[in-house]
Structure formats: structure tokens, C-alpha cells
């Protein structure tokens, strides 16, 4: 049991860390392509070794600690960010299950957690501590402003996110992610059953991961760099890593909750080997995650940042009422349509 879990952890961590470093490259490519440029293509074939060069550069940089900072918390903040970003991955089901030697292995580090959705919500809320503490402990006003914005933004958008989730939980009747996928396999993907809920969740995911157009905690034109102004070297790299890891987890969570996770429609009608089907499922899941990540990046290079009051307006006056309406709609749908 323990060895099985360890193997899964190592596999998942390795994959995600590699993916994260390549996401940075992808982001640079996409930004270039959307602006009629070519993008990084010098390091290695097609620029594929660029992440290596970036990491080396960051490793060799001097780690500067501001004299006015709270040393211990300044050190702790990036750790919180990265830990939170990775721990959500623990309960994501990457595929159905693989049968080896007559024994079935589920493709999730911790499968059948009956409070899965709650765990995700709880952990992503902890993520804001990393940013807020980073902003507060740096002893710089720009960082502090970034941290403050981050916490205000999280509070406003976490509500919408939660309300979007409620519709999923209502439709599926379970908090277990595996169960949610099973319910989508039998009853259709949640994006069709609760489109408004999906939209709300998508929008708040942008705020949750601090991506444009909601990247006010960073807002480099106004706040220099926001919460990570005073960070350098590997500590800065950890924040960077956390941002991209958060993108992966948010995409994975959205795929599981709304796009049926590893489910490929009509695949079981071909009567294939279950192991092959599981592997195809993993590929489908990766594809769904990739689609979301591409969307995240596409939006980043298309839409300008919100002003702070616009952000608050949108969060409290538009998205929150919509979230409540969505619950009513879902309830009506559940009582009258789906029976």
C-alpha cells in the first residue's frame, strides 16, 4: 500500500514538475505567437532546452533577503504556496484503474476521499496565505499592497467558486471526485448539466490562480511585482512554480468537475481491453488539462487587467448573485428535468 502510494507520488510529482517548467516555455511561445513573433527558439532544438537554462539561471542568482523583512515568514511564504499547489494533486483521479496481475490499482494518489471537493476548497484557500504572508513579511509597500489585494480578491472569488461547486455537488450527490466522475459518466458531463456553474467556476479559477485578467496581486505596472517584488533566486522560482502548478491543478479540478475527468464518451462501446482504456483515459485527461491551460494563456495575452474596483464590482455584484441564481436553476433542473 505504502509503496504503491510512494510510486504514484513520485510519478505525479515528476510529471507535474516537468510539465510546469515546460509550461513556462509554452507561455512564452503562446505570447509570442499571439503577437506575431516567433518566441524562444535558441536553446536546443526549437528552444526545447529553454526551461533548463531558466532553472540554471535562477539557481545561480543571489538570494537577496530585504533587511526590513520578517526572515522566517519571508522564507515560509513560498513554501506554503508550493505545498498547497501540489497537495491538491493528491486526490485528483488521473484515470479509472489499471489491473496488474489480477490486482486493481486506482490511478489517484489518494482515491475515494469522501470529502474531496471540500479538501480542494480548503487547500486553495490556504494558498492565499502564501501570497499574503509574502506580501506582509517583505517589508515593502508594494509587496504589502499586493498581498492585501490578493486576500481581498480571494475572499470575493472563493464565494463564487464555492457556489459554482454547489451545483456540481447537487447534481452528483457526492463530494468524492471519483463519484463525481462516475455520476458524469452515467448522467452526462456537468458542463452540459450546469453550464452557468461551469462559467462561474472558470472565471473564479482565473482569480484563484492569479492569472490575467485578475492578476492584481502582481500587477507589475502598478505594484512593481506585487507580493514577489522582494523575492529573488529560488524563492522567486518557487512562486513562479506555484503559479504554474496552480494552473495545472485548477485545470485538473475543472476537468474532473465539469468535463468528466478521464471519461471519453462512447469509448466503452468498442469493447477494448480495460487497461488500454485506462491509458486512453489518462491521455484524454491530459488533453483536457492542456486545453484549459491553453485557454488560461490565451486569455492572459488577450484581455487587459481589471481595475481594482471593477474586480470587486464583478465579484460581489455580478458573480455572487449569478451563483445564487445558479443554485436555484440547478435545484429546479434536478427536481423536474432529471427525474
Amino acid at each position, binding site marked *: 500500500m505504502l509503496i504503491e502510494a510512494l510510486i504514484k507520488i513520485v510519478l505525479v510529482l515528476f510529471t507535474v514538475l516537468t510539465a510546469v517548467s515546460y509550461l513556462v516555455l509554452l507561455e512564452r511561445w503562446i505570447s509570442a505567437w499571439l503577437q*506575431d513573433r516567433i518566441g524562444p527558439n535558441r536553446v536546443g532544438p526549437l528552444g526545447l532546452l529553454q526551461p533548463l537554462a531558466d532553472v540554471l539561471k535562477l539557481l545561480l542568482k543571489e538570494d537577496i533577503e530585504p533587511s526590513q523583512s520578517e526572515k522566517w515568514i519571508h522564507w515560509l511564504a513560498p513554501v506554503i504556496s508550493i505545498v498547497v499547489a501540489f497537495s491538491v494533486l493528491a486526490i485528483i483521479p488521473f484515470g479509472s484503474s489499471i489491473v496488474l496481475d489480477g490486482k486493481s490499482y486506482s490511478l489517484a494518489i489518494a482515491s475515494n476521499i469522501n470529502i474531496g471537493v471540500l479538501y480542494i476548497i480548503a487547500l486553495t484557500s490556504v494558498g492565499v496565505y502564501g501570497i499574503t504572508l509574502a506580501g506582509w513579511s517583505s517589508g515593502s509597500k508594494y509587496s504589502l499592497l499586493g498581498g492585501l489585494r490578493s486576500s481581498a480578491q480571494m475572499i470575493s472569488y472563493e464565494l463564487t467558486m464555492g457556489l459554482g461547486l454547489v451545483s456540481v455537488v447537487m447534481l452528483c450527490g457526492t463530494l468524492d471526485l471519483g463519484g463525481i466522475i462516475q455520476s458524469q459518466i452515467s448522467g452526462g458531463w456537468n458542463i452540459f448539466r450546469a453550464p452557468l456553474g461551469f462559467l462561474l467556476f472558470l472565471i473564479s479559477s482565473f482569480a484563484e490562480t492569479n492569472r490575467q485578467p485578475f492578476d492584481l496581486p502582481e500587477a507589475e505596472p502598478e505594484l512593481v511585482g506585487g507580493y514577489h517584488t522582494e523575492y529573488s533566486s529560488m524563492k522567486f522560482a518557487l512562486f513562479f512554480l506555484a503559479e504554474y502548478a496552480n494552473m495545472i491543478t485548477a485545470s485538473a479540478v475543472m476537468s474532473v468537475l465539469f468535463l468528466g475527468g478521464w471519461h471519453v464518451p462512447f469509448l466503452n462501446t468498442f469493447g477494448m481491453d480495460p487497461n488500454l482504456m485506462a491509458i486512453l483515459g489518462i491521455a484524454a485527461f491530459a488533453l483536457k488539462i492542456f486545453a484549459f491551460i491553453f485557454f488560461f494563456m490565451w486569455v492572459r495575452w488577450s484581455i487587459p487587467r481589471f481595475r481594482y474596483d471593477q474586480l470587486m464590482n464583478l465579484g460581489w455584484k455580478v458573480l455572487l448573485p449569478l451563483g445564487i441564481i445558479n443554485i436555484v436553476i440547478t435545484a429546479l433542473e434536478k427536481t423536474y428535468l432529471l427525474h
Partner: protein
Amino acid sequence: MHNRSKYNNSKPNRKLSLWEKLYLPEIARGLLTTIKHLFRPKFTRQYPEEKWEAPAAFRGRPVLVMDDNGAERCVACGLCSRVCPPLAIEVQASETELLKERFPVRFEINMLRCIFCGFCEEVCPEEAIVMSKDYELVFTKYDDAIYGKDKLLTPKKDLQERLDYLREMRNSK
């Protein structure tokens, strides 16, 4: 608040239509615009491999014109040196058996000083010093930046385009 300048003819407080107020359709329109660029030809010039060919009007590194007989046109009158605003040119004259009687034994341009103004070319009575198309100037030592006759002399046929351009400009005045 309603000052509309001649540069900005957009209406200042335009009422948004309901469709625009819905916001999401406009976002979708913006996303569509950017995704179109994904498939457009790129503007980037891959510099060291793809070089830019300057037009004749370009003022690059000043060079000395070498006539077909292998001698420079320069008669070492020193006007270029005199007119040069940053004092980059140094000429030392001497006598020669050729018809022009005078020639520069030493002709040096300090490329760290040169500001590519083209005054030397403009003032030269012999069309002996012209601006070339060369814009790739790299040196690692101070001494390398002082270009002597060996680096300045350029065959006339390589500069024909610039010489024709100068003639055209002068005649059109």
C-alpha cells in the same frame, strides 16, 4: 470633461449597448482577434542568420572610395576632418606621382567617436568618403575601434549604389 481633441474622435461617454454590457460576447470577440494572429506570418527577423539589407539612403560606417586603379580618391584636403563634429577623423597628407598629386598617408576614423552624421561625405569635394551600408560594428578593444586605411578602403563597385544616390540627391536640388 467632454473635451474632444482632434486626435481622439471617439465619443467620450458613449452608452454601451446591452450586448456590450453583457461583457462576455465582447471578451469572446477579443479572444477571436488574438487567436487569428496565431496563424499569421511572423514579423521576427532571425538576426544573425537573416540580415537586413539597408537601402542606399542608409548612413552606415563611413568608408573611403577606392577607384578602379587601386588608389583612393581622397586628396587629403582635410575638410572631412575639419567638419567632423565629434573630431573622429584624422588625415595626414603626402605627395604622390599620380595626377591628383596629394594623397593621405594616414587616414583614421575613430568609430567610437563617429556619430554617423554624414557631414564628411557631404563636404568631400572628390566624393572620396561615403557612408556605406555596414551597420555591424563590433570591437573588443579600444585600439580596434580606430579604423585605418586598410579597413576604410572599399572598391568603387561596392559603393556604386550610394554614389548614384548621392548624385541624384545633389542634382535634384
